[in-house]
């Protein structure tokens, strides 16, 4: 790997030279002028890919329904079993995949920007471990048997507790929020939670174990309309807010001092970005477990292809993440039908070679 490659993937620091500020206080954009038109075109392309993946996810499945039947079911006609498959199983699952994939890729891109660490991924602040402990605790205490929502809610609470603990640690060290401390605290909390899970599981019965496994491996098989609505209700404002932070994130990529100099309210941006992105991860973990690789691979792939300006990167990550998880889940549902593969297996098996190809081509 050449130095140039390392630079590109070491991504969020886009330009080695300090960006000269123009008279109006606007920093020079890293993306050249032609990007002004290229950006929307690229987003439209990705939107097309996402919609294609969405249609494929609804059209294909283990049941092998003819396309006409699927269309009939969407229109509310057709026999009850086909209608149930399309409207109650495939459609909510496809939408959940799109929302979760988009949310994970977006929060991955944000974490990488704010932590200025190319290895940052959505679960780096210990969210996955916290969620798994919450879920396991709910199962051990027998809540899950009575209320179907008890386990996801417990997983979400676990994720939030982990976020709070990590931020308390980071906030307690020094006057400003030090991202290195935050990163360390996240990794430490993650390691600690994982140890607790392994300890619990050593003495756990098989049922608890399987529940925990479900959370650790991630799956969209539990997709229901309420789950879709809950994720969407948080996703829409969170994504809007994070994408609105694109310019301050561009500035942050230049270094906190420079960003401060150029007028970014660094502390506020960091806190807002972290909290909103962490909660987005927490909600997605609560409804579909920990699905790996998307938050790491998708933003990097877009940086490699189109550069690291956040105005394009953030919305592009949402669309590409949605398309990628939709496609991966469609493969997971159909390739070994009637069994299902864990979707994380597909995201890694397909994502890693594609990513390496992009990396060596660039």
């Amino acid at each position: 790997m050449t130095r140039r490659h390392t630079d590109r993937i070491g991504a969020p620091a886009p330009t080695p030279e300090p960006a000269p500020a123009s008279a109006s206080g606007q920093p020079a954009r890293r993306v050249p002028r032609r990007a002004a038109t290229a950006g929307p075109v690229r987003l439209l392309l990705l939107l097309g890919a996402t919609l294609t993946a969405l249609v494929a996810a609804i059209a294909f499945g283990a049941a092998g329904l003819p396309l006409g039947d699927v269309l009939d079911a969407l229109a509310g006609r057709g026999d009850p079993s086909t209608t149930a498959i399309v409207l109650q199983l495939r459609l909510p699952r496809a939408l959940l995949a799109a929302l979760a994939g988009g949310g994970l890729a977006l929060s991955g891109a944000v974490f990488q920007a704010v932590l200025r660490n190319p290895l940052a991924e959505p679960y780096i602040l210990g969210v996955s471990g916290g969620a798994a402990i919450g879920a396991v605790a709910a199962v051990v205490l027998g809540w899950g048997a009575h209320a179907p929502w008890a386990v996801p809610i417990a997983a979400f609470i676990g994720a939030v507790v982990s976020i709070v603990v990590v931020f308390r640690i980071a906030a307690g060290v020094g006057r400003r929020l030090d991202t290195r401390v935050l990163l360390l605290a996240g990794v430490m909390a993650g390691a600690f939670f994982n140890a607790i899970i392994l300890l619990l599981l050593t003495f756990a019965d098989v049922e608890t174990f399987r529940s925990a496994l479900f959370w650790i491996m991630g799956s969209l098989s539990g997709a229901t309309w309420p789950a879709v609505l809950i994720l969407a209700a948080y996703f829409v404002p969170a994504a809007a807010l994070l994408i609105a932070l694109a310019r301050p994130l561009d500035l942050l990529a230049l270094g906190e001092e420079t960003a401060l100099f150029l007028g970014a309210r660094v502390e506020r941006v960091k806190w807002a970005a972290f909290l909103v992105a962490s909660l987005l991860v927490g909600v997605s973990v609560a409804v579909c477990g920990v699905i790996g690789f998307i938050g790491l691979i998708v933003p990097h792939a877009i940086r490699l292809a189109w550069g690291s300006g956040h105005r394009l990167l953030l919305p592009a990550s949402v669309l590409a993440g949605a398309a990628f998880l939709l496609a991966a889940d469609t493969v997971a549902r159909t390739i070994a039908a009637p069994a299902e593969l864990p979707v994380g297996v597909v995201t890694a098996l397909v994502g890693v070679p594609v990513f390496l190809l992009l990396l060596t081509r660039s």
Partner: protein
Amino acid sequence: MLAERFLSIATALAILLSTGGCTDGKGADRGAPRGALAAQSAEACVDGAGQSCPEGPGAVVDDAGRTVDLPAPARRVISLIPATTELIVALGVTDRLLARTDYDTDPALAALPSVGQGLTPSVEWLVSLAPDLVIAWPDAQSRSVVGRLDALGIPTYGARIERIDDALSTIRRIGILLGLDARADSLARDVEAQLAEVGRAVEGRPRPSVFYVVWFDPPRTAGPGTFVDDLITLAGGTNIFSDAPTGWPQVGLEEVVRRQPDVVIVPVGEGNGASLERLRTTPGWSALRAVREGRVYEVDAEIFNRPGPRIGEVARRLATLLHPASLAGEVAP
């Protein structure tokens, strides 16, 4: 990564789950009493075929405490648990099964499509088969499968077969749902008679201590509250890990050596890496007196690890292994 650690342990457990799969017997969330059978339509359905039962087969309470009440005897059945699949075959209605798992290796089922290892079946595929009864483990993951099917109006029965008594009551309850009350009752009586015969044959004999190798590496065995523990006791042995904290504990080889079992039972197959040869050549295992003196017995995991209708047969075979000299003539092999 944590996920990798999980996967390695999960491989072992997946096998365990799909074959005998049990928990530690707490059963805390079980609302209704065990084996609560509704006998209302039993008399009406004695012909066993179910055709003369216009009002449905009668409600039963499954192991998750849910009441399963079918409008008619189940004719299109999907069993995701090998033990209940065997039961349906034993009741003579193999033709009602729509699918199998990879663990159902019975040649009579070979033509059926397999849902894989039964852990993550495709819900939409199950729905597309239009079953009128799905039998699955009522745990958190299956619960998502079971919950989905329930919401779509497909009746499900959660079977969590932990002990011998559960296996017997499962025979009767599934029988009711199939409209085969009388046939299931007579099958259950046969199994009970087999178990009782074994119990009588070993009565008053010295009880050898037994180590049952559920999994070879890392060693995992059957603890208290499991049908394996029940069967060892019934067959005139003592499970050396009947004091374990959980149902299917992982145990230290050192502890096995310290407890020096008189007999080692090795279920072979279904991914369990154990065999007589490996025990002889692996340090630690080879230090067991039972291994050195040739009291290690290989058995078929597909039969021994399943709490299905063959537990009577398993009890007999265990008894002849534990009391070889004295029992040869008394319990038919």
